[in-house]
């Protein structure tokens, strides 16, 4: 359960909106059910009071929306940022993707977000209500007389199980308290895949990527994917394709995308959250993050604004390509 309450967030937003300090608020909007939250631009206090949501299903990271919304909205925008969102925020600033002056960033603490798929797997389908209690998510369904209680730990999304940081690395104002960078086990899955033989690894990824329907949701939600025109959407690029010509090509899409965001991906996990086919895309990104850490020393994209990512920086003592090649056998 989130420690900070909805009221604190709404009151903050309403006061800044009514004082004219901000023109709009980027927050989570109410859905049909207890869990289907929609990123929403609020422009009035009434809308905020009525539709603003803050609960364990507010996983959406708003940083990328700032690229388009700061251009569209006249005046400042208030944006709520969870700790992991602040890394994307900084990374976008490093890449000069939006005007910092047009944003009022409010940091909110996060206890980790729930994954509705996990909740449904435990409580069953036909969810008619979810209550957020100290004991856990109390889920009422159409088919059970008694509600079921699911602990927050059991409902926790994978990216939050492996939370890398509770620390806000960017904000104008903080609600509640910020935490620390955490020791996470986020590279454990990567290590398992690295330990596979080449054939096993190929089979693993072929199995996962074969489910891809090329909806592009991973790319469209990714805060590191903010090209004005993606090469895959440009009919003149020679690479534009709405469907793979071969199954091999399908795999290339994701690998190319992972390369493109390497060194810039903050590991926010939005790609895997939105994938309709549950492809663990974050594992590709984490592999690159781990390699960069190993080859160039630990680097966290978005930890600060303006840092030189190892892949776009040059030092005399940088690893030679041949060293990377040699490590192939020893690892």
């Amino acid at each position, binding site marked *: 359960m989130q420690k900070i309450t909805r009221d604190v967030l709404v009151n903050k937003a309403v006061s800044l909106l009514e004082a004219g300090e901000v023109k709009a608020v980027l927050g989570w909007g109410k859905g*049909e059910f207890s869990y289907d939250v*929609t*990123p929403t631009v609020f422009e009035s206090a009434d809308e905020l009071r009525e539709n603003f949501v803050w609960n364990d299903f507010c996983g959406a990271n708003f940083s990328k929306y700032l690229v388009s919304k700061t251009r569209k909205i006249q005046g400042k925008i208030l944006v709520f940022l969870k700790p992991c969102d602040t890394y994307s925020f900084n990374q976008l600033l490093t890449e000069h993707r939006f005007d910092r002056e047009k944003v009022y960033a409010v940091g909110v603490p996060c206890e980790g977000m729930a994954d509705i798929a996990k909740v449904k797997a435990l409580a069953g389908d036909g969810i008619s209500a979810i209550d957020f209690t100290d004991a856990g998510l109390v889920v009422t369904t*159409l*088919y059970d007389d008694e509600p079921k209680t699911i602990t927050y730990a059991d409902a926790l999304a994978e990216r939050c199980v492996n939370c890398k940081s509770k620390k806000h690395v960017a904000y104008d104002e903080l609600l509640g308290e910020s935490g620390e960078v955490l020791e996470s086990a986020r590279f454990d899955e990567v290590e398992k895949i690295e330990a596979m033989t080449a054939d096993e690894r190929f089979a693993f990824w072929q199995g996962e990527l074969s489910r891809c329907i090329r909806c592009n949701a991973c790319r469209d*939600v990714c805060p590191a994917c903010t090209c004005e025109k993606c090469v895959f959407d440009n009919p003149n690029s020679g690479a534009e394709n*709405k469907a793979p010509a071969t199954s091999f090509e399908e795999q290339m899409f994701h690998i190319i995308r992972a390369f493109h965001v390497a060194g810039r991906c903050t590991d926010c996990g939005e790609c895997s959250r*939105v994938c309709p*086919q549950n492809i663990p895309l974050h594992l590709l990104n984490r592999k690159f993050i781990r390699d960069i850490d190993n080859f160039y020393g630990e680097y966290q994209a978005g930890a600060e604004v303006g840092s030189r990512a190892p892949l776009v920086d040059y030092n005399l003592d940088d690893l030679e390509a041949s060293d990377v090649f040699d490590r192939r056998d020893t690892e």
Partner: protein
Amino acid sequence: MRKFSLSVLSEVFAEIAKNATLYIPATDNAGGAKFTKWAEGVEYLETLNTVKSPKDFFFPHTEDLMEFKVTGKNIELFDIREESEDFVVFGVRACDVKSFDILDRVFLVDPVDTYYASRREHGVIISLACTRPAETCFCGTFDIDPATPAGDISAWKTEDSIYLEANTAKGEALLAKLDVLTEECDTEAVETQQEKIRKIMDKLPLKDLTTDSFGGGKTLDLFNSEKWAELSESCLGCGTCTFVCPTCQCYDIKDFNTGNGVIRYRCWDSCMFSEFTKMAHGNSRLSQLERFRQRFMHKLVYYPENNEGIFSCVGCGRCLSKCPISMNIVKVMKALGGEK
């Protein structure tokens, strides 16, 4: 009506698979279900909806249409389509069965799409009544009865048996082949189940969603609504909704250069994509608002206008559970006045 015990389910599957390729819902190894070619060892998965709809069977995600070979100044044209084989799909839900009618009205009208038509001719659909509709289900809005699913054969699954009723000549022919494994029975168990299902339908949270504000002739009422801006505000422009949708039928035709010729293929397209229907002059819809509006106007106004009032949504709820920002047709309909 005929029935068989669940204990002989795999024998029934094997019998069907003797004469045709059989597809059943099975695990996709990622928490979801997909229609999978049955073979010994493939387990039937009791699931409400597969992640992708069964429209792939008739309108595949990608398909080669023809090939051109170029020699000097000659162009030769080859029909490279793969011959459709006879196939049976088991476990199609009422909403998805209805989606085939909606696709038929696009692909089987003059000029008939022969690629689609061939698959339709070769396919036999065994539907399955829904005993546990989800909160995201709203097929009732489109007058679909999940207790009486259509299809060549309708099926009902109880705790111990599966009941079958043929609705078409194709269905009767298939049922006749299952004579030995099935027995004649009365309809009592099925009627009991249907009653239960209808009671659940009355409890569904979206039961009051109506189409009253939509349909042919409503273009001018809805097209300029101010609501579109708000509804489309955070749309990512991805194709998730269109690609999991059983009724979305737009496609692109593209050429693949093979080195000494061209393979012309088609693939699903999405009106949510920025390059959708790009022509020589450019794009017809430049903003995401326009693209978003197009998708819902098509389903709720343009399609019914051209198809005797039939809407091109079946209420399966896939877009509700899969949209990355949880924006969907239900929210659109409610915002534009579609609740009792």
